């Protein structure tokens, strides 16, 4: 993809040069310099971005500090990946003792849920190139405090109780309000 774009730009540059040259040599010289600069940029880009890097996946998360233990991971690459390996670890080194791994097929996202509070690290790689790991995504799961949860629970319980009492008492009194 990258090389195709480079060739296309080069062709376009020469056409422009031919037309401008007929008008004024000064403009043609500047265009030559620009064209060379473009060529150099694409050569540098082509050297920097190796074919291996071009296939590397880019991982992202829907939330970096989820408060309910669920979030979504998604990845994109330079070509469609059918199967990927997704790794989760509580250590940034992804050492074996804290590692979980899933093979994810035919989709480019993964819905994670049910995690306890803590820091989790994620990375993905194409299934057929398990060493081509993506960037590492860090997710810090921070559940709401239990105090806050029970406060909201108590408000809900009070509202429900009041509602039930009002309806129950008035349904007993069939002439209420009329």
């Amino acid at each position: 993809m990258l090389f195709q774009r480079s060739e296309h730009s080069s062709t376009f540059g020469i056409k422009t040069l031919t037309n401008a040259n007929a008008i004024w040599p000064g403009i043609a010289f500047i265009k030559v310099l620009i064209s060379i600069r473009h060529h150099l940029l694409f050569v540098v880009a082509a050297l920097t971005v190796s074919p291996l890097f071009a296939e590397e996946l880019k991982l992202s998360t829907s939330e970096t500090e989820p408060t309910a233990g669920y979030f979504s991971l998604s990845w994109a690459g330079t070509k469609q990946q059918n199967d990927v390996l997704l790794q989760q670890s509580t250590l940034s080194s992804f050492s074996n003792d804290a590692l979980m791994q899933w093979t994810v097929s035919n989709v480019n996202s993964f819905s994670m849920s049910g995690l306890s509070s803590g820091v989790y690290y994620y990375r993905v790689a194409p299934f057929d190139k398990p060493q081509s790991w993506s960037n590492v995504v860090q997710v810090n799961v921070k559940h709401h405090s239990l105090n806050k949860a029970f406060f909201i629970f108590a408000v809900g319980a009070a509202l429900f109780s009041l509602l039930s009492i009002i309806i129950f008492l008035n349904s007993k009194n069939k002439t209420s309000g009329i």
Partner: protein
Amino acid sequence: MDASFLSPAVAFSLLLVFSIIWIGLGWYLGKSNRTLDDYMLAGRKVGFALATATAMATWVTSNTTMAAPQLAYQLGVWGMVGYSLGAIGLMLFAPIATRIKTILPHGYTSGDFIRLRYGVGAWRTFLIISLVYALGWLISLGMAGGVVVNALSGLDYEIGMTVILAVCVGYTMLGGLRAVIATDFIQSIIIILGLLLLAWIVIQQVGFQEIHVTLSDERPALLNLLFPAAIMFLFNNLLFGVGEIFHSNVWWSRAFAFKEGVGGKAYFIAGLMWLPIPIVAGFVALAAPSLDLSVASADMVGPLVAGKLLGTAGAVIVFIVVFSALASSLDSLLAATSDLITEDIYRGHINPTADNQQIQRVNKFIVLALGFFAWLLCLPKISTLASLLYFMGAFVASAIWPIVLGIYYGRANGTTASLAMLFGTSVGLWAYFAIGFYVAALVSCAISLAVMLLGSIVKNAEFTFDTVTNKER
């Protein structure tokens, strides 16, 4: 997307067969509609069995069959238990339905009550809330149609969504509420049998122990009874369900349509029958980690588990159950919302002298327009089902207290009711974004109550309920 569960040809065939059945029934039942009451309220003489079935089937929506598994997958055991508390809304509405029939024997919509009880200002506020909710629910139902077809067969999301909307619009236009109630009866039986079969298969093939061990290792919070977000969610969902039922014309139109003395019993029994359904549907989702499923979006987890366990057979079961659940709710929502727009906006604001034939024609046109509008809004799949659904919680829960206090007490007044709905919705929406979807309804309900109580103290009005009955007649 994994398209191995169901071939596109099978998915198309199922869509076609059920489309023909529902539209055929709509056409057949619509033939006996003679008056506006027949079309909009099934002649106001629906008996106990049909009344119970339609209440239960309407409450079993795509959200029950798809968002309940999503909530179990995200919030664990409390997620599915919390979802089942939605049944309380139906049970609490039982005495309200009896009361509605007493004070508004000739009413058509929930808007009728708000207008007569609180005046024009509160009526318009209520209509905005009600229509936002109806549209949100319509979108979530249309989206669910697209999601389930896509998850099971790989067919484009747009195809499933378009077919389900078109079919429901078709038979609702043809048959009115009579068709809606009759199809609900058949759909409720399909839903219960399908879900029971699916849960039994999950237990047989995966088993409680394996599910428990996998969840303990990989997703421990799902089994944690002190899961904070899930604890917050419990009463939020209950109040959301109460808000949905108490304000929505879906339930009011049924209260008007049921025979004298039927509404109370029918709503209570329907609530009891509905109670275990989200638990069964949600339980299925807890098997996903044990099955090593790649769940791309949480609202697809139910269909994915069924497809993984049973292949084509499981996919067919889920397809039929969800299609029935979708249809049973979508038709009711289309009918009730078009009634609300026809009566409260067209007759109430645009053409007060319209005769019944005009009303019926306008009503059919509105069903069509609503379907088309919902289709347009469903095209960009903007959210997951649960997120979209609970966004509505902030709106509907703000109407609980204005309705309950307005039905039973004379002191509640129109200005206060409007303010309660406005403030409740605004603060509820703030909570949705600042805390999470699992508190929006609860916060909205609490604020609305505070405003109602304050307003009743500040402005001492005394409303007599004879006025409602007399004005209506």
